[in-house]
Each structure stands twice: as C-alpha cells, then as structure tokens.
C-alpha cells in the first residue's frame, strides 16, 4: 500500500495547493477538462476541488467507456442473450446501464438470461472452454487500455480452435473524442483552457497521440495519473503553461507513460482490429474513425458477424444536457432533469450512467458542497 499512499499524502497536497494558489493569476479563469473518469473519480473522492482557488475549475470529460456506450449496443447484447441464448460475459460496470424499453443486462439476467460477470478476458475464455456446447460472447468495451487484452483473447481463441467463443467489440479511441470536443469549440476555446490527458490510455498509445491538441487547437495538455496528487501536479503544470501562453503536450505520468507508447500493444491491436468508419458515442453523437472493429481475418470470432447483429440507433433523452456538459458549456446542475428525473438509480443520459460520469459524480459527491460550505461559514 506504500505505493498508493505516496500519491495521497495530505501534507504534500496542501503544499501543492499553496503553490497552485500562488501561481494562478487572480484576474483570469482556468477551465481545465479532466478527460478520464478516473480523474473525475479522484477529484470527487478526495475533494481535490476544495484545494483549488475559486478561479480554477474542472470540466468533466467523456472519458468513461461505460458512459459513452450507446444504448443500442446494450440492446444488441440483450438480444444476443434473449434470441440466441448465448452466455454473455461482461464486466460488472455494464450490468446496470439502462437499455431501451426499461431493460438492462441486470433485468435480462433476472429474466433467466445467462449473463456472467467477469474480471478479465481470460475468465471469458475459461467459460467458453468449460461450456463447449454453448455459444459464449465476450462483451468487449473500453478505451485503448482494455483493447490489447481483447486482442490477445481473440488470438488465443483462434489458436485453440475455440469455435464457440466470439467477441462483441465496442472498443473506442480517445483522440477522436477529444478532437470532437475541441472542434466544436472552434479551436482554442472559450470554454476549455487546458486538458488533463488520459494516463492509462497513454501507456498504450503514447503521449504524442495528442499532439493535435496543441498543434491544431493551441490547447495545452498534460498526461495525468489518476492519483489525486497526480491531478494536482498536472493542474499546476497546465496553469504554468497557460500563464506563459504556451501550448505543448507535457507528461506528468512519466512513471509509466512514454512518448511513443507501447509499440508491441499497438502492433497487436493493428493485427486484430481496424478502424470503423464511424461509431456512435452516447452524448457526442456519430464520430468518424473513433472506434475499432474486428478485422475481416478474424470475422469468425466477431459476434456481430456470427449473429448478424443489426445496427440499432436510439435517440438520446430530450432535455439531457450531456453533449453540452461534456464540452464544458454547462454544469450538471444546469440540466432540468438533474436530480429529479435523472439520478444514479435511474440514469437518463451518459453522464449519469456510471459513478465516473460528470452528473453522477456531481450527484454523489459534489451536490450541496458549495452550499454546505457556505452554511458553515455563515454559522
């Protein structure tokens, strides 16, 4: 536990907070987007926002793969279970996500669907080996971090001749999402001054994958670890860049991330996956070249081919402000549905789906925060 504690030291945090407060210029705003759900989680769980001066604020980005998975894909997965009687292996995060018609994997399971929660692709392979008479589908989801293990599982299934195994691929890529958010803003935006970039994802694709943020949009980006001190250190680095008027890609997470990333993992991904021309992101819409598909050579292991799965598009809920929240234009509390119709128990939009979504995190950890702090000051 030493390892983690080192990055959660309260004394260092206070020192850093002091430096940040001294460095941030009082006459300007710093609107920083933390891209990943992991960052959002750290900010709320450890109360990082409380350690920031008033003019340094965080905008919670789209970096939670569960949140951005469109409803239609869950509908697809439920259909696999209900119509094709497969054993569906899924990460636990997905189990509660609402699908169409008040359904979810949890309800499909209660209705008798054979849905199993796994912790790795290897668990799914194991289940396939144990049930040679049944079709076993792995519900693959995640950014670049979780993609190589899926690639390995596909190669392994091929090598073993595991004919009853296939993968329902929903892997998406972070750079296109980031580009979309910055583009919508029209370049160096009025709303996002700097970005705390993905850490785990960057171990795979490397920090240079985000060069366009600085080059095209003149927005500085710092690759930031998920520990609260990482978030604070990266925030300080962004503030320094913004003060100096520079926009470069910096790497705070040097203990793991390199510029080029993990070439071996990249090769593996290229061997098994190819780009989809376009893919739907919940809250962001259709994004070109933003997701991966299993290559033709492995089509027999692709559940979409094997079960002839249809593309299902579903409309986002009316009134949901996710697209604007993900771009930093609105706060969760600006949404009329926030906390009334839309709660973590009954999520309406992408940002409320997983605990790392902006609205859910705000609801669980941040709601009333300002208010109560004010109350205490008054008391």
């Amino acid at each position, binding site marked *: 536990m030493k390892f983690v504690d080192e990055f959660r030291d309260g004394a260092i945090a206070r020192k850093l907070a002091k430096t940040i407060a001294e460095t941030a210029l009082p006459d300007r705003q710093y609107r920083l987007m933390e891209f990943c759900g992991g960052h959002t989680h750290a900010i709320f769980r450890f109360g990082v926002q409380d350690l920031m001066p008033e003019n340094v604020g965080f905008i919670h980005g789209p970096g*939670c793969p569960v949140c951005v998975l469109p409803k239609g894909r869950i509908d697809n997965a439920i259909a696999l279970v209900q119509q094709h009687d497969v054993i569906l292996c899924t990460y636990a995060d997905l189990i509660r996500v609402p699908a169409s018609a008040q359904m979810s994997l949890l309800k499909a399971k209660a209705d008798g669907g054979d849905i199993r929660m796994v912790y790795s692709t290897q668990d799914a392979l194991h289940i396939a080996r144990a049930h040679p008479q049944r079709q076993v589908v792995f519900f693959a989801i995640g950014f670049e971090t979780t993609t190589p293990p899926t690639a390995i599982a596909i190669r392994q299934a091929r090598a073993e001749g595991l004919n009853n195994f296939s993968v329902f691929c929903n892997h998406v890529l972070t750079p296109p999402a980031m580009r979309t958010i910055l583009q919508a803003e029209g370049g160096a935006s009025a709303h996002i001054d700097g970005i705390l970039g993905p850490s785990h994802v960057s171990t795979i694709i490397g920090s240079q994958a985000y060069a366009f943020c600085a080059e095209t949009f003149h927005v500085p980006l710092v690759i930031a670890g998920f520990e609260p001190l990482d978030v604070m250190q990266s925030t300080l680095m962004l503030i320094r860049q913004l003060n100096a008027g520079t926009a470069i890609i910096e790497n705070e997470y040097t203990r793991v991330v390199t510029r080029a990333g993990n070439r071996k993992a990249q090769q593996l991904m290229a061997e098994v996956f190819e780009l989809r021309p376009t893919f739907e992101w919940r809250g962001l819409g259709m994004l070109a070249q933003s997701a991966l598909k299993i290559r033709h050579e492995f089509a027999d292991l692709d559940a979409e081919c094997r079960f002839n799965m249809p593309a299902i598009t579903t409309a986002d809920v009316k009134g949901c402000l996710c697209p604007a929240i993900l771009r930093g234009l609105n706060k969760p509390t600006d949404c009329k549905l926030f906390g009334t119709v839309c709660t973590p128990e009954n999520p309406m939009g992408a940002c409320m789906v997983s605990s790392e979504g902006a609205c859910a995190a705000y609801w669980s950890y941040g709601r009333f925060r300002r208010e*109560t702090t004010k109350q205490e000051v008054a008391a």
Partner: protein
Amino acid sequence: MKRPYSVKLDINNGSVNMTHGSGGRAMAQLIDEIFVHHFDNELLRQYNDQASFTVPDGRMVISTDAHVIAPLFFPGGDIGSLSVHGTINDVCMSGALPLYLTAAFILEEGLPLAELERIVASMAAASRQAGVPVVTGDTKVVEKGKGDGVFITTTGIGMVPAGVNISGDQARPGDAIILSGSIGDHGMAVLSSRENLSFATTLQSDSAALHTLVASMLEVTPSIHCLRDPTRGGLATTLNELTLQSGVGMLLDEKAIPVKPEVMGACELLGLDPLYVANEGKLICICAATDADALLAAMRKHPLGRDAAIIGHVIADDHHLVQMQTAFGGRRIVDWLAGEQLPRIC
C-alpha cells in the same frame, strides 16, 4: 426415546434429496443426526414444534435475518456462523441481551451431507460460544437448481435491560460517532474467495457476535443514543440511514477510519470503496460527546473493540448528508450507494 431407523446417515458420501424434506422418516433422521446432534439443548430435545420458556419482565426485542451467500465457506467463517452472528448482532444493537435463536433451513437437492454437517457444526459452535442456543427450527428441501446449496433464516429474541433506550432516531448534533474497528474485512474476504477472483490475499471475515461488547459498553454508559452494525452497504450506507432517521447530518474524518492495508489494496485493485463494503463484526455507536472517551476506553478493552476509534461527529444539516473530510485535505459527500457496488474496469 427410540428412533424409528436403524442405519445411520451416510454423511461422508450422501447428499440431500427430496425425501429429506417430505416429513417422513428420512427427514426425522436428518433432523436428529445433524441438527439435534449439533445444536443439542434441552428445549430442542423436547421434539416439539415450538420451544417454550419463561421470560423475565421488561422489553423484549425480536429480529430475523435471511442468509444467502456465495461461496458458502469463506476465509474467517461460513454461512452457518454468519447466520448466528448476524441475528445476535441485530438483536443486541437495541442494547438487548440475546436469549434464544431459531433457525430455518432451505436445502437444495444434491447438497452433500458432509457440507451440511460442516455448516451446522459451525453454527452450533458459534451459538455455543455466544451462549445463545438454537431452540427450534425447520427444514425444507427444494429441487436442484431452485436454491444455492443452502439458505438459512435465523430469528433471535432478547431482553433490553431497564433504563436502556437505544434507537436510530436518537442522534443529536454534537454527538460523537464511534466505530468499533476496521471496515471492509468481511466483504473483501468473501469477494476474494469467489472462484473467478484469483488474487491471493490473507483477508479474513470479521464475522463475530457483538453482544458481549455491547454489554460492556452499556456497563459504562447506559445512555448510548444509537447502535448499529454496518453490514450490507457498509459504513456509508448505515450512517446515511441514521442521519435520515434522526434528521441530522454527519461529518467524518477519513484519517480516523481504520482500514486494513490489505483491504485497501484489494479495494484499489477492484475499484471499490471500503466505505461501502460489508462488515459482520463491527458496530457504530453514537453517544453524547461527554460519554465518548469512557465508551471508547471500554470498547478498546474488549477484544472485538480493540481498534475502536472516534470517526466523526453529528452535525445539524437539513439535507441529512454524511460528509467526510478526506485525508487528502478536501471534503466530499458520502452518499447512499446506487444499486450494488460493482468493480470498475478502468
């Protein structure tokens, strides 16, 4: 009394079948050779459909708890000991002295008799150690596939000593919140022993009967305001229940909450928050600030309260929020859990 069967149950090789629930000889034999054999006590040996006893004057409490758990055996306990501890704890969180337990078993066809005996023996040992006998019970058998090995429901009764008035609605602003020891041990021990979770740990469930700890606390301070054991949903959920019931808020100090490093490590790995992980041998005590030190000292003298700590205090708050000063220096809300806590992937 002569029993109407001559061949003993084959506990080593046999398994539960439908005749064991049919009301015939097989059932009588199962009850005799497994349940009565292990739980053995005077009331049970009367072979009546009910246990009868006289009770002292005063306020009686009753509580019931259904137990389903996978796996049935986990590091530090099993469904048998858990079903005894769980109900004793529910009874004694009123300040009551638990007197008797009842137990109902739903057995799944095919359950090896050896496993059943192991569970019943462990239950009997837990009840004997706690000094709270199982005095009556029931058994049913369901077809294979309609149960998960064994389900156990236990009911307990107890008597509240005069002058004790403990209830979840008694927390008042200014009160101290005391926790009896480290959190998350039970939940993480069970999770780590699920077959598809391969990380090896040394975690042990904290499953234990807390009534003697409660008795020693009441000895120093009969005017405890609230007592509750933070089981399912963990510390966070229990504190939220209490704030709502009492119409108050709470402010916790993260640094003061004991969490074992191995529990923290396993939680990190799975993306879980120990505040929401189940405990089976811990209690939360809310008392007047002036009583806190004496109570804490009494708790620390008891083996089940050795690591007790004051973890925060009750505040006035119309939103009934539980808030926490993080060790990191910020503040966060500790909310109710939405659904079940599930491991995260990224």
